[in-house]
């Protein structure tokens, strides 16, 4: 009956007083309380989301000319923000899909919130290319449908069109994956609800879930197949985003290293964002027993891995530019490091390559303040990475007379800050009304951890039971098993 478990395997949930009801209480509890600080944050970020809407409205009314773009630099903050947000969205699917396939059970503490971040980040990301089209009311032209213009079809050879398919598929599949996992947890909230309205709302959200054996059987099959589909999907999405650049002929963009380099960067920035927000959430909602320091350490290991991959990619790019013997390529990269945007390159190198190296040291990996500060560094660094790639490659092009410098206008800045506002507003709503940890999944890993590890921990904490036992019926099992 028992699966083999290593003697050293520590339990994934801390606290000696835990049982199934306690797990439900701990996770559902925050949705049943009101937090004063929540309203303050909601008003602040809600106003920023308002700024987002205002600046986009301004853009639509007056046109793209209100942005800082010019004839030379015709992609700048908008596409930087797009790639940045898409990257942030990658951690959710990585955690829920790839770690599910690899049977990394620590994922259960963080997957729900990370998937939510994926969805909100993709919503933010999608706004940028759509509004960059200028005439947003014509945005449906990007879909291939029979029309009266010929019929003139979209260009199936274009990576920009592949992007349309990739992003919309990614959004849909992430949403389905996230929501199918939420249904059982909404049912848990419904069955605890005291008010009639609350019960009614959560019943609608739960789709009438009851948790029969057949439902769970199909649930597990669905999760596994969706995970299997999402894994190549998440890799394909950022690969295709990188094709937007890699298939062009601009020196600095035309690089075959882009797909793996972009994917690693996306995972890197995604995990950083998950850490930034989850460190706050676990503190405010008192979920330290579920999102433990071990979880943080595991994520930090992924950050140092992907950060180093990105670092190698930066250096490889420079080497290949020199090795190619191609003048324009060499100029593009020389210019990237020592040109007028040297400060952006330095910022990127410092935040993305240097700062994660602290994580080689275990005490720093397990230090929450270090993690929080470095996660913000990584977020900033990854924004600069996209800025460096996009703007420095364009600013000094083939013709010196057209060289230019990009300066953002207030609309550019407003849209960027506003998109953070939108993301945070959605995340705040999620944290307030949805279970931020997958309740059913956490319950299913509740008993993991070897008896030895549990006993050792219990001794350390001065308890005799070892925790997690506490069931009156446990005796029956012992009789049957031994």
């Amino acid at each position, binding site marked *: *009956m028992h*699966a083999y478990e290593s003697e050293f395997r520590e339990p994934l949930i801390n606290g000696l007083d835990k049982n*199934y*009801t306690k797990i*439900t209480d701990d996770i559902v509890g925050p949705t049943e309380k009101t937090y004063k600080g929540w309203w303050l944050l909601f008003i602040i970020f809600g106003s920023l989301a308002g700024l987002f809407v205002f600046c986009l409205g301004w853009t639509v009314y007056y046109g793209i000319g209100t942005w800082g773009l010019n004839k030379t630099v015709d992609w700048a903050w908008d596409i930087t923000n797009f790639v940045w947000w898409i990257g942030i969205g990658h951690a959710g699917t990585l955690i829920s899909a790839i770690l599910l396939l690899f049977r990394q059970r620590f994922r259960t503490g963080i997957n729900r919130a990370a998937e939510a971040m994926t969805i909100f980040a993709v919503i933010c990301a999608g706004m940028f290319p759509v509004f960059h089209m200028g005439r947003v009311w014509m945005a449906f032209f990007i879909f*291939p449908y029979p029309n009266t213009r010929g019929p*003139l*079809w979209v260009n*199936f*050879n274009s*990576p920009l069109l*592949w992007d349309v*398919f*990739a992003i*919309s*598929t990614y959004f*849909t599949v992430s949403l*389905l*994956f996230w929501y*199918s996992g939420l249904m*059982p947890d909404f*049912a*848990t909230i*419904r*069955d*605890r609800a005291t008010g009639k309205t609350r019960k009614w709302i959560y*019943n609608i959200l739960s*789709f*009438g*879930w*009851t*948790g*029969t*054996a*057949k*439902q769970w*059987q*199909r*649930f*597990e*099959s*669905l999760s*596994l*197949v*969706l995970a299997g*589909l*999402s894994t*190549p*999907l998440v890799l*394909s999405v950022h690969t*295709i985003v990188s*094709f937007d650049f890699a298939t062009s002929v601009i020196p600095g963009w035309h690089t075959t290293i882009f797909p793996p380099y972009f994917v690693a960067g996306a995972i890197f920035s995604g995990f950083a964002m998950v850490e930034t927000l989850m460190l706050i959430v676990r503190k405010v909602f008192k979920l330290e027993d579920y999102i433990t320091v071990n979880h943080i350490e595991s994520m930090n290991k992924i950050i140092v891995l992907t950060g180093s991959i990105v670092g190698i990619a930066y250096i490889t790019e420079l080497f290949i530019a020199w090795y190619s013997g191609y003048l324009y390529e060499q100029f593009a990269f020389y210019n990237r490091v020592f040109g007028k945007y040297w400060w952006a390159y330095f910022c990127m190198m410092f935040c993305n390559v240097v700062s994660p190296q602290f994580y080689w040291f275990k005490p720093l990996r397990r230090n929450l303040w270090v993690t929080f500060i470095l996660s913000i560094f990584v977020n900033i660094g990854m924004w600069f990475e996209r800025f460096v790639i996009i703007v420095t490659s364009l600013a000094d092009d083939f013709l010196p007379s057209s060289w230019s410098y990009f300066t953002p206008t207030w609309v550019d800045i407003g849209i960027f800050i506003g998109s953070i506002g939108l993301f945070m507003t959605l995340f705040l709503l999620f944290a307030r009304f949805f279970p931020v940890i997958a*309740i059913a*999944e956490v319950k*299913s890993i509740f008993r993991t951890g070897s008896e030895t590890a549990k006993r050792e921990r219990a001794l350390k904490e001065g308890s005799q039971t070892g925790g997690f036992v506490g*069931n*009156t*019926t446990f005796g*029956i*099992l012992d009789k049957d098993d031994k």
Partner: protein
Amino acid sequence: MAKQSNNFILGLWDHEEVFLHAIEHLRHEGQEIHETLTPFPVHGLEQALGYRDTRLHTAGFLFGATGTTLALSVMSWVMTTNYPINFGGKPNWPLPSFIPITFELTVLFASVGMVLTYCVRNKLFPGYVPRIFDKRTTDDRFALVFDIDGKSDSDVEKIKQLCNSNGAVEVKKRTFDENE
């Protein structure tokens, strides 16, 4: 549709492994289990209940194959037949550049199709009001439901006694109104 039964015996357990043993014993005794409710997916439950494997993944494969076929055939038709354009002398049927969209549509169709099938088969849709046997089955209780319509008192007693002797923490009768 057959008339829905309204009278049930509900056995509740608080430990999933005891629960699995109980299912095996009860089925061995020839008791028919009407429904099994658990707060989370219990490993080995469907084997204990003798359920056959779900065919949901087969449905997923078929939906995915539909997506692949649709993507490839539409792109091929558009670029070779409906509106062939000369892109600098490049081929009109560039298979490699069809790969990304074909892949995305395969994933999209498989996922959407599977989730819809899942909802239909599991009777899940917004606003559906299910019969809730016990509210604690989404929290910390593992429940077995036995249909006792048309069963004699001695049969009912037998079920109760079997549940109790197999570690149930609570055994009770659950009756629904006609409209519930």
